[in-house]
């Protein structure tokens, strides 16, 4: 005679099947709790990973100084046309080069506002004047050809390295290498194609997300061809912007010095700039911020998960209390026939655990499915760590035990005679 757990579980399942709808509805509470935990964890993890990846692309040992347009001066508000001069200057670059010993490399970048054409195809990518160091400092990969070199710089060569998106649009069929593209009024020979910057799958179906729509030309060549000042007509306003340098990337020799370089450059720029026309971006700080954001997100998530499982648990408890009352007579019979208190506790606990484990298991399936849907249709990255389903499932099973204990205890404590008299 098998009086083992298997039999108890089988009997529990059978009792639950007597009230299919009720059991199914009870299970739903746990199901949604579990699946939402897994789905939210996956989305959160995906977002955090994407953020970290983007920050890492900036180079975690780099400090990036950028020009930003200062807030509008209201005194000049009604001029029809004006020239706005702002941003980092060549003088800034010189000062930095002289004073920062911990900086391994200093890479100034300058944007040129020019159209890029090949045959009848036209694009307006970011045309960036960059020194050869740029590739090493940012760790960007080449798809084919080479990056700009020292000799390009010395010879003021008319060469260009195009980003992945530019290559795709200008040369959908041909090999871009060796072709001449027109940048503004001058022809540049393509010598290299950069690899796409971000993981490709997240660009899928988003034509606007061309983070690689860039064309790089040698720094000196740009200076010669397009002038020392970058003049840009801004669409929508009649301002002409005049910026000497758009970006200066400082590659620091070790992570410990990043913070020092960051604060030193903030201080120095603060001393020489009258207005806030620059920003200092420190990927290392951003990483710390991203970690903090993730921590907060996890706390919020934990609370939501806790609440939803609590609600599911209360649902289970409610149903089990009703079941216990309904089956008072059965309890009386079993007790009269020799069932000990622990047998009754086990019987009802098994039923709640079957409910919650069933709900938890289905919740895991749904929870693994939701991130796939989100990834497919909302175009967000999701990452399901093995921990998430494990955690969610164990918590749901635990919920069954915790919220099943009280009804089971109530059942076991009944007086057999009283229970038998119950209608």
């Amino acid at each position, binding site marked *: *005679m098998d009086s083992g757990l298997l039999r108890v579980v089988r009997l529990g399942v059978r009792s639950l099947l007597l009230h299919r709808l009720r059991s199914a509805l009870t299970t739903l509470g746990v199901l949604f709790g579990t699946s939402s935990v897994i789905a939210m964890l996956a989305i959160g993890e995906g977002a955090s990973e994407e953020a970290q990846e983007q920050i890492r692309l900036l180079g975690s040992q780099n400090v990036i100084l950028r020009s930003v347009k200062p807030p509008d001066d209201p005194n000049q508000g009604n001029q029809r046309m004006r020239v706005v001069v702002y941003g980092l200057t060549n003088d800034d670059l010189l000062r930095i080069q002289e004073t920062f010993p911990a900086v391994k490399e200093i890479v100034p970048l300058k944007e040129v506002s020019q159209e890029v054409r090949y045959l009848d195809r036209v694009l307006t990518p970011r045309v960036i004047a960059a020194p050869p160091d740029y590739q090493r400092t940012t760790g960007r990969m080449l798809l084919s050809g080479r990056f700009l070199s020292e000799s390009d710089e010395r010879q003021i060569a008319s060469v260009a390295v195009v980003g992945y998106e530019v290559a795709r649009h200008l040369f959908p069929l041909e090999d871009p290498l060796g072709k001449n593209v027109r940048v503004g009024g001058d022809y540049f020979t393509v010598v290299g194609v950069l690899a796409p910057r971000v993981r490709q799958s997240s660009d899928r179906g988003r034509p606007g997300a061309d983070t690689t729509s860039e064309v790089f030309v040698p720094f000196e060549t740009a200076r010669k061809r397009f002038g020392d000042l970058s003049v840009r007509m801004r669409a929508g306003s009649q301002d002409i912007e005049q910026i000497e340098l758009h970006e200066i990337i400082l590659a620091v020799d070790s992570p410990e010095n990043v913070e020092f370089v960051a604060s030193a450059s903030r201080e120095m720029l603060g001393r020489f700039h009258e207005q806030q026309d620059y920003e200092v971006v420190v990927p290392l700080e951003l990483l710390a911020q991203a970690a903090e954001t993730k921590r907060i997100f996890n706390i919020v998530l934990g609370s939501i998960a806790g609440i939803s499982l609590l609600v599911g648990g209360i649902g289970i408890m409610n149903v089990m209390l009703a079941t216990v009352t309904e089956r008072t*007579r*059965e309890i009386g*019979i079993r007790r*009269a026939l*020799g*069932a*000990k*208190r622990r*047998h009754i506790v086990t019987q009802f606990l098994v039923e709640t655990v079957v409910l919650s484990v069933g709900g938890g298991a289905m919740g895991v399936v749904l929870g693994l499915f939701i991130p796939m849907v989100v990834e497919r249709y909302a175009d967000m990255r999701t990452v399901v760590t093995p921990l998430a389903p494990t955690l969610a499932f164990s918590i749901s099973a635990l919920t069954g035990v915790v919220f099943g204990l009280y009804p089971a205890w109530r059942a076991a404590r009944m007086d057999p005679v009283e229970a038998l008299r119950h209608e």
Partner: protein
Amino acid sequence: MLDGVSRVYNMGGQSLRALDRFSFEFRRGEYWSIMGSSGSGKSTLLNILGCIDRPTEGRYLVRGEDTGRLDDDALSELRSRHLGFIFQSYNLIAQLDVLENITVPLLYQDDPPKDGWERAKHLAERVGLGSRLHHRPRELSGGQQQRVAIARALINDPAMILADEATGNLDSKTAEEILALFDELHGEGKTIVIVTHEPDVGERAQHLLRLKDGCIEEVRHQR
């Protein structure tokens, strides 16, 4: 053996003595019927004999052992091992089939016998339900349900069988079958105590005990 047993029910400040300083001894192998008017305490007495209820005062000894000293688990084990209880209203478990209902007492024994299913099948045949092994209680007639309840009371090969109006709801032919079964069990040496309202049922037993207001009114040795 009951020694000065009282069972007092307290309800809303009023206390009611369903059994009043009741002393009596049921010996091994005896066949007793208990009669008495409604509310005289028959069921109360049977519940105490079946260790489902405990006396408020006095002692109930089973084979010389005071049940008042036993804890809940020990009493439960006693019920599942040595007692067979037949209820007035069958009290089968709805979600279990005939065979499963019969084996319920074995589930709760500390070390259940291995041959439970064979025994249950054998008993079902003995009470004439050999062809209904996998029916649910609601698919059976009242008499058939009562017979399942009897088979269940016998599954643990109990020393004492207690029946509370086991034939109350049955037609005379079915009742007769069941009484014949009791005679047979008595012949096998089991102690039997049945509660009944029907005089002709009461008269079939070896001894008759008549209760009134929780006290003994009459003891008659019939055979």
